[in-house]
């Protein structure tokens, strides 16, 4: 699965994208955030307060309880400040 990062999350992680092979039990966005934070200390620090991190699965804005199984791309990013 491809993971995209944007804005200050991309900067803190020093990467805009990465390819991951997720273990079976990582099924939702919040599972993914926990798994990333547990496997990479930089991610744990970068996420900070995980509740504010927004997500999109295959280019659809979703909540943390959304499923990611079978997803091609998951994007993780800070609250949006467009307009």
């Amino acid at each position: 699965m491809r993971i995209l990062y944007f804005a200050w999350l991309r900067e803190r992680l020093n990467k805009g994208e990465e390819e991951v092979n997720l273990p079976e039990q990582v099924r939702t966005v919040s599972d993914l955030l926990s798994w990333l934070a547990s496997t990479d200390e930089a991610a744990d620090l970068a996420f900070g307060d995980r509740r504010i991190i927004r997500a999109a699965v295959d280019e659809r804005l979703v909540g943390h309880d959304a499923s990611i199984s079978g997803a091609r791309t998951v994007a993780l990013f800070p609250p949006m400040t467009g307009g």
Partner: protein
Amino acid sequence: MTFTGLVRSLAGSEIESMTLEHYPELAERQIGQILDEATTRFALLDAVVIHRFGELFPDEPIMQVMTLALHRREAFDGAEFLMDYLKTDAPFWKLEKTAGESSWVAAKESDDQAKRRWKLD
């Protein structure tokens, strides 16, 4: 009704530039969806959203919302609905450069409140 958002250049705010990062595929889908929602909700004859990205400078336009309706109320409400939505749910992030220092603009709670009045989600 047309609304254009510019890069601030108020006296005393030494914004040198504002860089807009965005997620293109999600932006197109999100803006398309909200245009459909606004069109049905406010019986708009037509509606357009333009949102720029990359490095922009004071007084330059960042985005524009245009709505066309039979009556003023729908045109104004439709434009405001689109604006509120763009502030919170369109995948853009602003990096402001002032006095050589760059910092990410923080999302404002007031923007979330503004969107909630439309009872979208």
